[in-house]
């Protein structure tokens, strides 16, 4: 038996023993489902969610390619493929959703010191610490590099003062990775540093922002004379912009998956919604104008999915591709929700109350939420700028 076959056997039997029944497909639908983000403040409706996270975290399989010295799985690419396949076969749930995994850990591995990696990566992998991202500020949206939250050198530590906005889940997170201004006199891109801050430090406070969808996944985060140890600086002083850009690529790659109906969080199928609200005619959507528009949309979605696959087959390319996927994925997702709302008629704009299906009311909220997709992580217009300049080499004025 080859090493890979042996690994497959072991993985299969480990999953068999350790993946709890409610964490697999075909689970009892009456058992509550948790969205597991981990962290010190985590609570679980289903104790098996916690158990599954602990077991996978202990194996390091929430970040299977990271080496074992940082708490990762230490697996090769081929082994990860096998692990994913075996998890797919039993319909195993992802044990952990995490900005730490998607964004911070990759840049820590690249720019962190040995001590920083050993301190933070294992806790990300085990889901012990939940991270949030402190980038945007009230005065610095698309022009992120103009950010003003300052970190002054006060000897042993930095003194941080300022405000961040659009901090996803800041009220639930334990730590924040933030961009701060450490060089007020330097040109704007050259005076920024990348700093890790414990949210429990005195002077840190958060306030949720209510969105047009009625939900509040984002917060404002305030720093009022917050003392941060100098050890928490990642990379060189004033070299944070490079790290920030790198991290944004990881974020964009992640957000672009929203464009695929099969992407995270979308169980809504435009065809069945259209059939439900517009009726069927011999298996076809019962209204030809909608049918034609939905077909065009599905064709684009198919082509986009093939493009993601091609990028994978080509071995993944640099930031330009990330910008394209971010732009296209989010715009496509918005379009899809507009079509679903239109196809639902009056039911698609329901807000509350017993006269409407829960599904329809949720669609209204989801549609409104998509309006943020093309803003967060760099607006569509910023992505178009990136493509024009970095890919197409068009001149700046």
């Amino acid at each position, binding site marked *: 038996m080859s090493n890979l076959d042996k690994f497959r056997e072991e993985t299969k039997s480990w999953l068999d023993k350790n993946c709890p029944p409610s964490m697999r497909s075909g689970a009892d639908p009456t058992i509550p489902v948790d969205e597991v983000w981990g962290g010190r403040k985590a609570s679980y409706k289903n104790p098996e969610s916690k158990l599954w996270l602990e077991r996978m975290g202990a194996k390091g399989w929430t970040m299977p390619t990271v080496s074992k010295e940082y708490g990762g799985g230490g697996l090769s690419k081929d082994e990860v493929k096998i692990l994913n396949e075996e998890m797919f076969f039993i319909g195993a749930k992802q044990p952990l959703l995490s900005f730490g995994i998607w964004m911070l850990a990759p840049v820590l591995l690249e720019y962190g010191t040995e001590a920083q990696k050993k301190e933070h990566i294992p806790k990300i992998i085990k889901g012990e610490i939940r991270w949030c991202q402190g980038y945007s500020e009230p005065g610095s949206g698309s022009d992120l590099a103009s950010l003003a939250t300052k970190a002054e050198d006060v000897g042993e530590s930095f003194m941080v003062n300022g405000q961040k906005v659009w901090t996803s889940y800041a009220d639930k997170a334990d730590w924040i990775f933030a961009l701060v201004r450490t060089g007020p006199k330097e040109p704007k891109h050259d005076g920024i540093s990348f700093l890790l801050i414990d949210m429990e430090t005195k002077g840190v406070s958060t306030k949720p922002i209510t969105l047009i969808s009625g939900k509040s996944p984002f917060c404002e985060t305030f720093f009022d004379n917050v003392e941060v140890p100098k050890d928490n600086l990642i990379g060189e002083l004033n070299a944070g912009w490079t790290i920030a850009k790198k991290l944004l690529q990881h974020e964009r790659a992640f957000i672009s998956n929203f464009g695929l109906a099969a992407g995270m969080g979308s169980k809504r199928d435009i065809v069945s919604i259209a059939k439900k609200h517009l009726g069927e005619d011999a298996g076809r959507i019962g209204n030809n104008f909608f049918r034609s528009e939905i*077909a065009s949309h599905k*064709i684009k979605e198919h082509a986009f999915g093939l493009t993601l696959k091609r990028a994978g087959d080509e071995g993944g390319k640099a930031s330009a591709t990330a910008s394209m996927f971010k732009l296209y994925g989010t715009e496509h997702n918005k379009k899809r929700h507009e079509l679903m709302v239109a196809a639902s008629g009056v039911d698609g704009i329901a807000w509350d109350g017993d006269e409407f299906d829960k599904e329809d009311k949720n669609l209204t909220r989801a549609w409104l939420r998509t309006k943020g997709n093309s803003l967060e992580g760099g607006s569509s217009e910023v992505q178009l700028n990136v493509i024009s300049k970095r890919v197409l080499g068009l001149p700046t004025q």
Partner: protein
Amino acid sequence: MKLTLNEEEQFLKDTAKNFAQERCPVTHFRSLRDSNDPQLWDKAIWNEMSKLGWPGILIPEEYGGSNFGISGISVILQECAKTLTPSPLFATGVIGAYSIANFGNENQKEEYLPKIVSGEMTTAFAIDESSHHNPADTEMTAEFKKDKVILNGKKIFVVDGASADLLIVLARTSGNKGETSGLTLFFVNSNSSGVEKIKLDMADSRNYANIVFSDVEINKEDILGDIETGGETAENILDIARIALSAEMLGNSEAAFETTLDYLKQRKQFGVLIGSFQALQHRAAQMFCELELTKSSVMAAMRAADENSNELQRLSSLAKTVAGETLHLVSNEAVQMHGGIGVTDEYDIGFFLKRGRVAEQIYGGIKFHTERYANLSGF
């Protein structure tokens, strides 16, 4: 199904690129258009293509071909399309070669395939009978009389029909207009008595004809594939043709886009390069995204054809739709971004617009394929 080119395909693509750029740049097409040559493709260029083995790419080795597959010939068409190179490669090297190699009997293969490989015989596929592609609407009749078949009817918009030696014709052997059953494919020598070719002048200045068949007599042996199920066979041949044509349309779009980008980096107005204007930059970036989607769609369809996937029909309609929409967008934007010179005959960019719209119509336009995709997907 890996969506990247293998080494052989990359080699074919590079060869085709050099050939097109060196032997037949856009000036070659322009001079053909301006000549009185009714054929609208150049015999010498076709001979060179044949020496490179291109007409034999879909033909098995035993008949002299190389069997490099749909992907192989598609990347060649894509590169030739960048300089708008006209040649019989599509109608003969793709459609003729594929039809005969896959559905011909042993006699037919022996008779025709070596002649396609050598470049001495060209073919044309006679399908459409009205201004909107729809093979089920075939009315042309084929009547069996003893050991002969008598053909009557009119085919329109036959690609390379003005010059092809051998016609592959879809005709009704039973049933009525609108039915996909009751159809059969036949070989007809284009010089047969009763065949009248009427050359068409289309916007893209390429070789097309309407062909009238008046009591054309052929032999019973001249059936391609099975009798009465020619509709299905024709659909399969058409899907292959649509994929190859999508690759060609991708090449058209790529070239029009590149030319436009160059122009944005050269042309100055208000004292600056016009490429520095965000109003143009964002539209260029949008086109870049659409081109990336088109590349993936065409690649997936090529692969499906070579792997004989059950997704072939859907991916063929996907590729033709996406390639059509992208070429539509890019050719329009290319003309607009070139400003005044974009609408002059002296400048090449208008050729891409004209070629784009004609290619879009061949074997089904965007609406046709969007609906076909929806039907195949159960919408």
